[in-house]
């Protein structure tokens, strides 16, 4: 699936987008998997209260299932307007 990062999450992880092969059942599972991979992921996902997630471009919850999802995006709370 495509995983996208925005704002400081993108900067901390170092790429705006990557393809990730995973069998993670939920967003939380995916995060655990990524944190185990490398320090930069561990740092980016250290505080989930500072993060938001969108599944296929809809704001979602961290316990949401990933089945059928093609695009996951992680970013900080929005600051538009």
């Amino acid at each position, binding site marked *: 699936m495509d995983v*996208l990062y*925005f*704002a*400081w999450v*993108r900067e901390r992880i170092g790429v705006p987008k990557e393809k990730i092969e995973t069998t993670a059942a939920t967003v939380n599972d995916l995060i655990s998997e990524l944190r185990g991979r490398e320090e930069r992921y561990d740092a980016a996902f250290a505080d989930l209260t500072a993060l938001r997630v*969108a599944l296929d*471009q*809809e*704001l979602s919850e961290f316990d949401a299932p990933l089945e059928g999802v093609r695009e996951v*995006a992680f*970013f*900080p*709370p*929005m*600051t*538009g*307007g």
Partner: protein
Amino acid sequence: MRVVVQDAPFDYGKEAEAFADGRHDMGAIVTFAGIVRDIAGGLDVMEIEHYPGMTEKALKKIAAEAVDRWSLGDALVIHRYGRMGAGEKIMMVATAARHRKDAFEAAEYLMDYLKSRAPFWKKEHTAQDAGWVAAKDEDEAALDRW
């Protein structure tokens, strides 16, 4: 209903005029424009990142909800991304309703929702450094009234 997401500047006066023009059915027009403020220390440039695809979807959904809830004659949202200097207009919304209360409420609703629910992130660059603007608790709290 019109939603525009672009990096180019937009003409606030012309957009406001075009939005208000030729209406015989709506007595009240409200517009809001957000402008890059000079911050302490001297803002060099404001950079706005967004999530192409999701941004347009989120803004359309918010605008459609406002049109529906306040029976608006029309709604407009324009939001820029990219780099802009102090004094430049970042975005605008406009609402047309039969009466002023609805036009005001709908415009505030649009602003409250797009501020915390549309995928835009601001980064302020000064001569010294750069930092992402933190979301404010009061902006999240502003959603509670709707």
